């Protein structure tokens, strides 16, 4: 469970039931109210939550904000210092009470407005410079409920709490959602039904022209729903179909109905048949090389929904309201897909998953893997670490579970320092083939110790390019680098996480076996702070070991 410290300009009523959702997933210690700075000086392994009420900042200013500006400066530099020193999240919430009269709004103290906007601008700026800072403008969240419901004068004067019970619950739940999202990856695939989901009516009965799609009213709602799906796809969400239909009829709609916003090329994978949807969802996930936990299922039919829920509880099943006109807004507000860190990789991901699905489908029909792999023109490339790709390297450290020999979750700062260490070779691998550009999909870190030892500290590869024997090529490239440094012993420390057996199989088939020799080697390794042995030490049989599968990559 993650630790957080929370501080606010006013009383957040520690132990109030409002906090229970947050306390379920993390242990939280409350600072005494009014203290928003000491949390920022907590030890670096703790996340910090800060709740600022504009009214608290200005309550003693009597209209002169210059002094508050100064103390804000001090606060911001604390935030900036912390975000340099700690990789743990810093969540900052800012709330202000809305003006209730039009006259007040028209004649409102413009200095106060400028001060408020300045504060928001600064917080946005800080958030944009760091992956660990989250800024919730609570006004956006409170807006839907109305200021009068959210704030309570009585609670303020009685207990120094700005919020009503409802307001406190909304604040606490917003924080809990952010905390949850930080530690849980977003969903990746939206699986759609077709009839009465993408269009009104049943194509098998009503025919192409009989569908409700694109006209005014309900037909427009389906169009808008499709538009929202397309927007998600552009953000990197993979779209798939699971529909009980005759496949040709569905594609006929995609290709020939003028009002279809979604086109066939937007759909990465589809299961259009009469099988159980749960089975189809499992197959879809396998084809895309994802767990079913990555899927979100949208179907108008409550029976299909409840079956999927019962059989595959990991799938997020959207309880779509009966009334389709509510759908566009509902899908627009789904936050199960939103990822906090949008790397440029995410933008290309849809293409990559589509390529991956194509790859899995075709390889079923080719017996001779080697000649098949040769035929798809695999083009791997070593990419040195630089500022532009560092966050991708960190992302892979965080997310790669299967092909990962040590599963060390290195932070940006750690990777940066490794990269500047003259005794470390750290590099990424990019891969493209006939199925598409897979982007940056592997990370390797070799640490060199005295007496000609290379310690492979990081060797991880994204699961979406598994099955291409790329690991062989990468190992060979790593060995080339090691040979340039006259290395004589190559050591790999395999840490079993229960999920990375595939990486262990790789070691064994590539001349690496558990090392039973020379304590001296071990000691040298252990002296190196970076590459401490924690798992089972494997050693390469000899520097001239013939790495298998390289013929696949002959042309590169």
């Amino acid at each position, binding site marked *: 469970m993650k630790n957080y410290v929370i501080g606010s300009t006013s*009383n957040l009523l*520690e*132990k*109030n*039931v409002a906090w229970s959702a947050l306390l379920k997933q993390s242990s939280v210690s409350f600072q005494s109210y009014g203290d928003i700075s000491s949390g920022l000086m907590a030890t670096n392994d703790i996340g910090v939550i800060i709740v600022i009420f504009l009214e608290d900042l200005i309550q003693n200013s009597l209209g002169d904000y210059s002094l508050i500006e100064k103390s804000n400066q001090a606060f911001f530099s604390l935030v900036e210092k912390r975000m340099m020193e700690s990789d743990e999240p810093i969540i900052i919430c800012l709330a202000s009470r809305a003006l209730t009269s039009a006259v007040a709004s028209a004649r409102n103290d413009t200095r106060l407005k400028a001060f408020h906007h300045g504060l928001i601008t600064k917080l946005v700026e800080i958030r944009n410079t760091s992956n660990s800072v989250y800024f919730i403008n609570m006004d956006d969240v409170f807006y839907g409920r109305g200021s009068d419901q959210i704030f309570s004068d*009585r609670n303020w004067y*009685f*207990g120094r709490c700005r919020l009503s*019970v409802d307001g406190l619950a909304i604040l606490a739940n917003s924080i809990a959602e952010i905390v949850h999202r930080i530690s849980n990856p977003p969903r990746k695939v939206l699986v759609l039904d077709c009839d009465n989901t993408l269009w009104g009516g049943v194509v098998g009965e009503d025919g192409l022209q009989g569908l409700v799609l694109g006209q005014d009213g309900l037909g427009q709602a389906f169009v808008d729903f499709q538009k929202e799906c397309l927007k998600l796809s552009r953000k990197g969400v993979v779209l798939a179909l699971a529909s009980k239909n005759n496949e040709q009829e569905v594609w006929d709609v995609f290709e020939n109905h003028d009002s279809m916003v979604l086109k066939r090329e937007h759909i990465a994978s589809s299961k259009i048949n009469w099988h159980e949807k749960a089975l189809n969802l499992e197959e879809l996930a396998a084809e895309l090389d994802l767990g079913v936990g990555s899927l979100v299922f949208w179907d108008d039919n409550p029976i299909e929904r409840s079956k999927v829920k019962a059989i595959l509880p990991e799938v997020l099943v959207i309880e779509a309201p009966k009334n389709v006109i509510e759908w566009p807004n509902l899908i627009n507000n789904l936050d199960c897909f939103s990822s906090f860190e949008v790397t440029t990789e995410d933008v290309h991901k849809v293409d990559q998953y589509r390529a991956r699905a194509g790859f899995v489908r075709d390889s079923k029909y080719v017996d001779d893997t080697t000649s098949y792999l040769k035929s798809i023109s695999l083009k791997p490339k070593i990419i040195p670490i630089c500022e532009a790709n560092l966050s991708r390297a960190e992302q892979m450290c965080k997310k790669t579970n299967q092909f990962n020999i040590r599963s060390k979750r290195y932070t940006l700062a750690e990777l940066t320092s490794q990269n500047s260490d003259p005794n470390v070779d750290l590099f990424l691998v990019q891969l493209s083939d006939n199925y598409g550009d897979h982007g940056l999909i592997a990370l390797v870190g070799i640490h060199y110790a005295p007496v000609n030892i290379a310690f492979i500290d990081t060797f991880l590869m994204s699961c979406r390019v598994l099955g291409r024997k790329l690991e062989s090529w990468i190992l060979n490239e790593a060995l080339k680098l090691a040979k340039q440094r006259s290395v004589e012993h190559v050591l790999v420390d395999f840490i079993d996480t229960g999920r990375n057996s595939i990486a262990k199989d790789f070691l064994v088939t590539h001349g690496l076996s558990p090392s039973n020799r020379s304590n001296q080697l071990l000691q040298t390794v252990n002296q190196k702070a970076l590459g401490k042995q924690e798992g089972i030490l494997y050693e390469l049989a000899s520097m001239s070991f013939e790495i298998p599968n390289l013929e696949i990559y002959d042309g590169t």
Partner: protein
Amino acid sequence: MELEIVLREILKNTFKNSEIPDDITALCMGDIEEWDSLGNFNLILAVESHCQIQFDMNELETLSSISLLLKAINNALSK
């Protein structure tokens, strides 16, 4: 009487780490470790949400025991 049962549930919910006696009628603020002034505020807010009532400032400052709380709830509900 029924109100007492409800109130005991709210006490249990608000002071999760404390043992709540079967008979709560004589309890005062301070009798339960978690029932300090912040705890009292949380307790009152929970009562308000549950009973859909709102005490005013003057009442709030006097509510420091179960018997006073019961009286105030009955009073608010009868309004």
